[in-house]
């Protein structure tokens, strides 16, 4: 559906609602939470494999971790979950967790240190997409029996070198840190898959909810765990319905057939916000929009040109028009709400300043190609940039293509400029620092396609060492300062033009309280919700 049709539809719905009151509004039961969301990205619910947004939502509510983030106080960082406490060895390489007593899995089996060890070992051995979150600490399928082991009520994990404790623990709050019931999982093992096939569609956790069913592109149904150690959730049943169309979500919400609509477009958010019984809540998410200037380009690699491009973005104009309510200005690689995130946004739309910088660099008649993936918001950002650049004497040719076409060229370092979006992988600053500001080998032979700095052809210079130092700093406050310093330097010298951070706008019935989508650091939680 194109933008005009969306607008017309929203306008028509708004008009009709304005002149006509809905007939008797339905209401979901007081002990049931019904959410409309796009869940077509769920490919598995195995915590060792799940790496998508909607899948992470399920996992967060079904599996406990050793340490976890409290949805009512995300800023506090990791808190004890299945691990009641932990100690770090003198050499900083071994963390010994003491397990919480008396916790049971949904099956009734007790949660043991052995289950925790098995879960982490299993994730490393299966080596699915998110396994790097654990293997970056030196865990391999060959050494996990020694590096991750249980002893009675204690779990010991030993990393290959000293890392900041906060880095390790933050990573354990990620989906892959979910603790599974070893007995149940291994009872469902097939062909040595450590239960992976079975866990793709079933659950074996100890969390506040258990998975009743997942029908791809249709629904996810959860029921509460009355034995949950943190207390039985108020919402005894949670149903997440796959509703792709924004207008349909809005109608369901306004009729009272759902409690939360998570994918309303700006027009429907504006319409729903004026409806009785509906409220809108904003949360900052981790997705960042940026431009990457290829440093293999002889002109784009000049420091003044990199600076000039940062003044050629109409930050406020875009935020207040087609990105309204969906994105906010953010010029740093760490999303706001992350540990060490900087709130500094020093660049503004300034054509004259850009012209001065370009003149200082001796640039004339520059023509560059920008690769944009075929998403409406990205195309509009590309067009806005194209207009601004034209005013500064730069001709920008926009190439729109699919992910395969555009991303393949970015990964091959062929695009002059890439307009990208990036979301963090786990709730620690290293997740973005380690890709935007870290590039130990910038040669073509290194082929480090996983690093954005490498894809951009940028030798991050001293920043690479600073990023390495920050992941080993044990003092939390010092570590925060290190990331603030790295971001400050990055803003000035990097070939990345950081532009926007995503906002998620949830529309809720006004009786829904304590809703959390997890901000930028984690996923949605249901157990604290009340009505």
């Amino acid at each position: 559906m194109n933008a005009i049709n969306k607008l017309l539809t929203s306008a028509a719905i708004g008009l009709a609602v304005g002149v006509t009151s809905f007939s008797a509004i339905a209401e979901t039961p007081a002990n049931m939470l019904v959410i409309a969301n796009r869940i077509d990205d769920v490919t598995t619910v195995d915590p060792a494999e799940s790496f998508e947004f909607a899948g992470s939502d399920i996992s967060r509510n079904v599996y406990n971790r050793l340490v976890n983030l409290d949805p009512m106080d995300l800023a506090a960082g990791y808190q004890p979950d299945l691990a009641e406490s932990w100690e770090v060895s003198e050499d900083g390489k071994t963390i010994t967790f003491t397990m919480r007593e008396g916790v049971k899995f949904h099956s009734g089996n007790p949660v043991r240190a052995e289950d925790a060890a098995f879960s982490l070992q299993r994730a490393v051995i299966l080596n699915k997409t998110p396994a790097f979150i654990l293997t970056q600490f030196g865990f391999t399928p060959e050494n996990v029996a020694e590096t991750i082991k249980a002893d009675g009520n204690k779990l010991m994990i030993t990393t290959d070198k000293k890392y900041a404790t906060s880095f390790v623990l933050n990573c354990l709050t990620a989906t892959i840190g979910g603790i599974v019931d070893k007995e149940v999982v291994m009872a469902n093992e097939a062909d040595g898959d450590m239960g992976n096939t079975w866990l793709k569609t079933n659950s074996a956790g100890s969390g506040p909810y258990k998975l009743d069913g997942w029908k791809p592109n249709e629904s996810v149904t959860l029921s509460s765990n009355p034995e949950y150690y943190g207390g039985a959730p108020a919402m005894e049943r949670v149903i997440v319905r796959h509703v792709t169309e924004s207008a349909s979500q809005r109608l369901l919400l306004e009729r009272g057939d759902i409690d939360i609509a998570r994918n309303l477009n700006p027009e429907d958010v504006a319409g729903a916000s004026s409806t009785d019984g509906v409220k809108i809540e904003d949360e900052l998410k981790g997705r960042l929009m940026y431009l990457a200037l290829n440093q293999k380009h002889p002109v784009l690699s000049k420091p003044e040109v990199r600076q000039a491009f940062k003044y050629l973005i109409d930050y406020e104009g875009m935020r207040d028009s087609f990105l309204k309510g969906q994105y906010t200005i953010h010029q740093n690689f760490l999303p706001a709400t992350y540990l060490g995130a900087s709130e500094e946004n020093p660049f503004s739309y300034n054509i004259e300043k850009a012209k001065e910088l370009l003149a200082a660099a001796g640039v004339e008649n520059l023509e560059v190609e920008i690769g944009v993936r075929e998403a409406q918001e990205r195309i509009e950002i590309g067009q806005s940039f194209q207009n601004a650049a034209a005013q500064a004497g730069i001709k920008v040719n926009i190439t729109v293509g699919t992910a395969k076409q555009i991303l393949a060229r970015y990964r091959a370092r062929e695009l002059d400029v890439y307009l990208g979006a990036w979301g963090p992988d786990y709730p620690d600053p290293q997740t973005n620092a380690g890709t935007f500001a870290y590039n130990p080998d910038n040669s073509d032979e290194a082929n480090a396609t996983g690093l954005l700095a490498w894809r951009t052809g940028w030798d991050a210079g001293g920043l690479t060492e600073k990023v390495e130092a920050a992941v080993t700093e044990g003092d939390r406050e010092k570590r925060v300062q290190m990331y603030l310093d790295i971001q400050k330097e990055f803003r000035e010298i990097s070939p990345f033009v950081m532009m926007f951070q995503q906002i998620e706008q949830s529309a809720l019935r006004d009786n829904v309280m304590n809703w959390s989508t997890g901000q930028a650091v984690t996923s949605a939680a249901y157990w604290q919700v009340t009505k």
Partner: protein
Amino acid sequence: MALTEDNNQRRPTRAPLTDQVWPFLRTTLLTLGSIAVTLLGLLFITFVIGRVMPIDPVLAIVGERASQETYDTVYLQLGLDKPLMVQFFYYLWDVLHLDFGTSLLNARPVSEDIARVFPATLELATIGIIFGVVLGVPLGVLAAVRKGSWIDQIARVVALVGYSMPIFWLGLMGLLVFYGILGWVGGPGRVGIFYVDVVPSVTGLILVDSLLDGNWDVFKDAFSHIILPASLLGYYSLAYVSRMTRSFMLEQLSAEYITTARVKGMSEWDVVWKHAFKNIRVQLITVIALSYANLLEGSVLTEIIFSWPGIGSYITTALLSADMNAVLGGTVVVGLIFILLNIFSDLLYKVFDPRAK
């Protein structure tokens, strides 16, 4: 010798058994051969398109931030390094063993997914086509008989709106009015939240399953959810069926045998229904079969607006996610539907038109 000759003369002249069986066998084999060749062609074209289109199944699985090593591993696992024809023959071999493979993304057997989504579309399309035929055929006949009258004008407007109004617009407006404002029908989805997974799935058709289970409440709820999208789809069939019926009928009503029948004093009812209409049945069957096949193929926009988990949205989602096993499985099902409906139409031709026997 003479006796033998007499016996031979008395024996009834009967064609050898092979002469009776052979034409039947020949027809059956030709039909099966035609199905096989059509399906093979369909599979091959879809397979090739799937491989050359600019969507990367590897990227869909590993994610855009995966290392080159991970990318290469999955690339090899999917067999994408092999020549296209080799890949196709591996796939064909599996299909011949009724194995459509597993979805690249959710790792479920594609056949299980299709068994789940196809009944949803079948239920929707069947009610839709019943709606379209029951209203569209009489409307078309009346429009032809009363050509130029107000009935004809209404039929024209109905058809024009059906042809020209975007289905998503009409769907959303229908939802707004009948669900949002009036509250007469259920909203998006196959059943309300109270009835999710209440009745066991036997046929996958929730109306049938609820009746089999004797659960009248679920039946009523499911009916209130299906009536709007089915009517909407039916309306588009109605527009097509009524216009075609009108056109066929006008051709018949201007024929000389109709004039002769009227001159002979036959009642107008008999002229229209026993003569003219009888002669358009074969053409109508084609129109209805094609219309039904289109609905069964899955009306993607209707399924999206009404959150209807049918085969149209299944194939579309799979296509956008580069899940080619799912796309190919869905395509085979859709192709089979067309083929089976064509065969069914052919059989009905023979029932209604003796010349076709």
